[in-house]
């Protein structure tokens, strides 16, 4: 490992870090500095594209245990060096970017599966495990977390915990925060803390939920116990096209408020049905494409599926049948490969939000109106991908095919779109985000979202990380 290129002071820090994790697990390589300077957020991608200078870490460390994480945290606290946790780095909000340089703590060597408890149906794993690796290992045992996002191969368990991530089966199995039994975290001062063993108790507030979604600003999550489920006997899908989004939303709402238990409901607006569904699935339809699925024991699936079909057929519809639903499932990750994803030189962003059934269509239309009236250079598409008993999530996107060439102008336009759209969403009862997190991208809007309650978050941050070394500049906390 080459020595760092900075001041001789860095030589001492390098020695200290190498003493903890071993020299093979400390990198000062320029190749790593480039790789850790960019996550899946459009702004750092733009910066790379245009040859602008991005913030880079001085050191990348790969600890192999919570104890090593603890010692690295103590070093960072002692010298007041920023420490940014990096799992897969595939977040879209800039949450893993080392804005002030310092140490990037890559968790991917914390990748062991510690216990599969088949009696209680739980798994305990270290937080750096790539989620797909965990899921494959569980599937060999006939079980699964059922956390299956498009980023399953890119992201780590810890990344999902840190951003309250979700997967395509969330409607039945929940978001990651619903799956967590307990977790372990390392605090800025090096303390290793564990939350209570089970999530249902009346023994004070649930500390697991304090760390979930904290994006590495409260501590470094190193381990978690999750609920798991037997692999279903069958998983079946069915697809419809409704004449418009409003009808599709109502059909989806009926599936939920009748308290059926679909594992998936996904409804695409007319624009996304025209563009993405056609490109990926080859279906040429006008209207709103809805796919849903049920899984579990065959007889129960049949029963629920028949009830769901009856609900959907009570609206004006075109029945696409099970095959065009199964096709969606089989290609569900294809949407995220570069040939289907939006990419530079386009400017784009996922305005994902969540609201009650009473508000969600208004949220969709309010953001659409903002784009159409204020940003004529942009397009707006959306789908509704995670459904709850009380409402659903909107995965809206804006796309600007020809943003300004100048990166600063492009970044400013990008931020104006976000501000205007999310303020419109919040006015209609939507939140800033549903499952990608806040990161750098949305931090400036946190006070508007929380109001006076943001002071509670600030108080927790000051208490747990008085020197502001943990992932500074994220979640609206100071850089």
């Amino acid at each position, binding site marked *: 490992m080459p020595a760092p290129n900075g001041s001789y002071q860095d030589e001492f820090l390098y020695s200290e870090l190498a003493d903890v994790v071993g020299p093979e697990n400390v990198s000062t390589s*320029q*190749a790593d500095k*480039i790789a850790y300077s960019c996550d899946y957020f459009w702004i750092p991608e733009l910066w*790379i594209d245009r040859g602008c200078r991005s913030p880079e870490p001085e050191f990348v460390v790969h600890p192999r245990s919570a104890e090593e994480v603890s010692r690295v945290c103590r070093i960072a606290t002692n010298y007041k060096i920023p420490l940014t946790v990096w799992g897969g780095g595939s977040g879209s909000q800039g949450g893993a970017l080392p804005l002030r340089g310092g140490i990037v703590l*890559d968790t991917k*060597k914390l990748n062991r599966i510690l216990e599969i408890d088949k009696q209680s149906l739980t798994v305990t794993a270290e937080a750096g495990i790539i989620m797909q*690796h965990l899921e494959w290992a569980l599937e060999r045992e006939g079980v699964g977390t059922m956390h299956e996002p498009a980023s399953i191969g890119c992201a780590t368990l810890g990344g999902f915990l840190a951003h309250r991530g979700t997967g395509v089966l969330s409607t039945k199995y929940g978001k990651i925060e619903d799956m967590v039994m307990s977790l372990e975290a390392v605090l800025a001062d090096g303390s290793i803390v564990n939350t209570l063993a089970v999530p249902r108790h009346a023994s004070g507030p649930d500390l697991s939920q304090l760390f979930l979604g904290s994006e590495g600003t409260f501590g470094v999550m190193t381990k978690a116990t999750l609920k798991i489920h037997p692999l279903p006997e069958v998983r079946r899908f069915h697809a419809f096209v409704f004449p418009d989004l409003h009808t599709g939303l109502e059909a989806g709402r009926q599936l939920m408020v009748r308290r059926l238990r679909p594992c998936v409901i996904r409804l695409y607006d007319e624009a996304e049905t025209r563009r993405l569904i056609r490109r990926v699935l080859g279906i040429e339809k006008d209207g709103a494409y809805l796919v849903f699925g049920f899984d579990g024991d065959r007889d129960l699936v049949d029963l629920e599926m028949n009830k769901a079909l009856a609900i959907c057929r009570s609206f004006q519809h075109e029945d696409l049948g099970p095959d065009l639903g199964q096709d969606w499932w089989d290609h569900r*990750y*294809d949407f995220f490969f570069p*040939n289907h994803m939006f990419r530079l030189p386009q400017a784009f962003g996922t305005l994902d939000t969540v609201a009650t059934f009473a508000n969600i269509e208004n949220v969709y239309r309010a953001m659409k109106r903002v784009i159409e009236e204020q940003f004529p250079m942009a397009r707006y598409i959306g789908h509704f991908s995670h459904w709850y008993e009380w409402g659903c999530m909107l995965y809206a996107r804006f796309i600007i095919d020809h943003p300004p060439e100048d990166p600063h102008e492009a970044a400013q336009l990008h931020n104006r779109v976000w501000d205007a759209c999310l303020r419109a969403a919040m006015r209609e009862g939507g939140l800033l985000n549903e499952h990608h997190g806040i990161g750098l991208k949305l931090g400036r809007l946190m006070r508007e979202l929380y109001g006076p309650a943001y002071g509670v978050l600030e108080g927790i941050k000051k208490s747990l990380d008085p020197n502001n070394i943990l992932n500074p500049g994220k979640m609206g906390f100071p850089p």
Partner: protein
Amino acid sequence: MLITEHRSTIEACRFCFMCRHVCTAGVISGRESDIPRGKALILFKILKGYAEYTPDLVDALYRCCLCGLCEAWCKADCHPPAAILAARADLVAQGKAPGPVQQIKDRLLQTGNPFGLPPEQRFQTLDSPDLFRPQAEVVYYVGCDTAYQQPQIAQAFLKILAAAGTDVTLLRNERSTGKPLLLLGYPDAARAMAAQLAAEIRAVRPKVLVTTCPSAFDAFKTDFPALGLDLNGIEVLHATQYVDRLIEQGQLVPRQQAVSVATFLDGKYLGRTHAIYDEPRRILSRIPGLTVREMAWTRELAYSCGEPGGVFHLLHPELSHSMAARVLEEAAQTGADMLVTACPATLTLLQQANRTPLAVRDLVQVVDAAVAGHRPDRTGGAAEPS
């Protein structure tokens, strides 16, 4: 710059993480610069003139074993290994090859093998009365890894060929195919070395050129034509294909009972490049008493030990060791008692890393054991047990 021809891969991969969980090096090291995205970020900066080939960036470009699992997984038709190979040629042309790379290149040029071992030792452990003949129907190209690291593979294959009555010769002046030079970024030196070998092969005027080495097989099938080298229509076969054919034609009969459960490891060149998946499984299934069990990762998605070209493990032995250990762990999970490969470099890596109860064998060794004692009379009666 050769990398300009790979612009679409570089621009797509630079911001894509979709293959990170299958990247052989990246999964082991956890380093972001080890996955295709990390390489593409570097190459994009080079392409645009935002960066130069500094030693750090060059080192990163040699931390890829070129196993191709990323492109097998990709749904966007991206080809990171080809882009990385182009970058290596570019940086070598700029005189920026790292010291260890240059050392391997020098050894290849001086001795004809990447280990720097004397050419006269190449076949010294092979025990056969008539290894070199001026003309033969079949040329057996042994390859560097087999000759210097795994001569028992060559010995077993020669016994199989003898049992089948094959008219075969080795090349007295055999040396590397040049593929390692190509993989390290020296296309001109690779071509010169390959041209010399092609001339020697042509001189024998064989009908068939067979090799136990998948890298050499790919060199003859892919590199030689790409380098403009003509083998005069000589049929090129990997030993796996040749043995499969011998068994199919009844010239080889595996009769020896082998009470064993085997799992077969596919590789980069034999598998992902040339789709030779069925032949090895067909051979194993024809050995009495032998059961074949598949690993979870198999065929085009098989794990790699980093063997392509037989040079990655010389540059990064620890990383390669961990890759092999992962393959062994995967194989052990099948419940098999034998892990079979058809690649000599892979066999070496697996043997070095093996801490499992698994026996590790090359396919021709397994076949030889199954044929031993039941050779047709024309070989001079029953052969000794292997």
